[in-house]
């Protein structure tokens, strides 16, 4: 592997000279983004298939074998539709907003380790970087709602933004004990710290708090208040059409995969196998299995639960999850002190 890389480097330096580091960075980004985007598009198909099965339907099965080409058909449709911009809209902000939803969801992937050493940027504040970048998605939502100049959009954006900000608090606090146990903000260190026991065992309540909070963060059912179609048409993206709508759509699914990957790293031991003798299966496969399971839970939740009422949603975040997370920080600290782990 190292030899092949050496050959590629020397070839690239010969071809591009001084700008080779830039080109190499671009290549690495594409190698990462390609699979992520393919996963995103196939997640949309998986969602329709899974929910179809749960509702005793077949789901999409016309385009390609078993509907496997459906995501490409959807993408082609979105590309060829007309992008409609409302006359009273703030055009520039209106057009920037969808990219601001998708880009943070993709940027955060650069710090996610897929297996030991398989990470684009192994920064030592990994978890902070991911949280900081993904907290920027709220701007896309607010900007789209405001720029559309539409009451439904604006109300949807306000709801969504306050929901995302509120649940970010509970989510952030539920991650602190994980960092305390690992003694590091680096995602690779956090995974390696779980070699003996996955974090989900000592921190079970927090894993639940984290998972429900990220369902709310990604605006998924049962917390999809921002797009409550009965009252707000489609929430903040009411006025969007064609690919600008598609970007919101992609952003939502990219975020789902991102938070599932993060949950795997924080609580389910990342690429580590559940028992030692199963380590003949490569870590990458374990990581994919765990992320896939969490994504299935996302779809399962969507097919199962009705939508929350807005005041119930706020109550759950601030009055239930936040106290649980705060108490568990103290419990973790006390336990670490008693067992001499600190």
């Amino acid at each position: 592997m190292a030899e092949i890389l050496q050959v590629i480097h020397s070839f690239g330096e010969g071809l591009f000279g001084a700008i080779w580091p830039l080109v190499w960075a671009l290549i690495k980004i594409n190698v990462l983004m390609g699979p992520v985007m393919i996963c995103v598009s196939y997640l949309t198909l998986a969602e329709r298939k899974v929910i179809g099965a749960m509702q005793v339907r077949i789901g999409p099965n016309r385009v390609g074998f078993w509907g496997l080409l459906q995501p490409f058909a959807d993408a082609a449709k979105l590309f060829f539709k007309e992008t409609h911009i409302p006359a009273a809209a703030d055009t520039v902000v209106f057009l920037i907003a969808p990219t601001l939803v998708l880009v943070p969801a993709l940027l955060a992937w650069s710090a996610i380790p897929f297996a030991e050493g398989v990470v684009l940027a192994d920064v030592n504040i990994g978890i902070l970087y991911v949280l900081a970048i993904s907290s920027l998605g709220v701007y896309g939502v607010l900007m789209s709602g405001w720029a559309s100049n539409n009451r439904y959009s604006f109300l949807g954006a306000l709801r969504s933004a306050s929901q995302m900000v509120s649940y970010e608090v509970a989510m952030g606090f539920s991650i602190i004990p994980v960092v305390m146990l690992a003694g590091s903000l680096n995602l690779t260190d956090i995974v390696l710290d779980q070699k003996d026991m996955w974090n989900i065992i000592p921190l079970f309540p927090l894993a639940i708090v984290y998972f429900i909070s990220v369902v709310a963060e990604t605006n998924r059912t049962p917390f999809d208040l921002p797009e409550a179609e009965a009252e707000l048409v489609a929430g903040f993206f009411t006025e969007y059409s064609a690919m600008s709508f598609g970007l919101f759509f992609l952003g939502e699914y990219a975020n789902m995969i991102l938070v599932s990957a993060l949950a795997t790293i924080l609580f389910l031991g990342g690429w580590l196998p559940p028992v030692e003798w199963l380590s003949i299966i490569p870590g990458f496969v374990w990581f994919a299995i765990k992320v896939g399971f969490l994504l299935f839970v996302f779809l399962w939740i969507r097919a199962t639960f009705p939508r929350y009422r807005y005041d119930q949603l706020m109550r759950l975040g601030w009055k239930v999850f936040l106290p649980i997370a705060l108490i568990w920080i103290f419990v973790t600290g006390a336990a670490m002190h008693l067992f001499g782990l600190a």
Partner: protein
Amino acid sequence: MLVELIFYLFAAITVGAASMVVISKNQVHSVLFLVLTFFSTACLFVLIQAEFLAAILVMVYMGAVAVLFLFVVMMIDLDFAELRKNTYEHLPLGIAVGGVMLVEMVAIGVTYHAPEHLAVATPTPEGVHNTLALGRVLYSKYLLPFEMASLILLVALIGAVVLTLRSRKDRKRQDIGKQLARTRDEAVEVKKVKSWEGA
């Protein structure tokens, strides 16, 4: 060379966005430019390898503070003609305040020699990365100021809640415990209705 180029790029974006905050006619655009200023400042922090400060800047100022700014600014209806009406009346005062600040900044700029001061101010911590070093200093040497700051923030938090809290007698609050304690037996009553007689 490349790092310097990137520095000047981000610095230019920071200064440009900061001036747009003041110049821009639309108040929402102003806040959005402020957000861009924060972000490129965070990028500058990354360039001097203060990645912890960069992440905190993005999380706290962009993820929380500026979102609240944006919330408020989006919802208030400002009349700009009204705001600009007295511009020339206040111009002398504005020039005076701005002039004093300019003189102060020039004075600092003349006497402060960045490279020497920076060399003294940021000794590289040995063997530990800067997040750990920062944490150690914050929780030992500066523990008291740190706790004081958090106490002041807590007081501000409670103050904000007290200011906006009002209890009205006629509002209908839901007691979630009561709601959850309800069972089918007390909520559903099955009645037999004879055909053609039920109203």
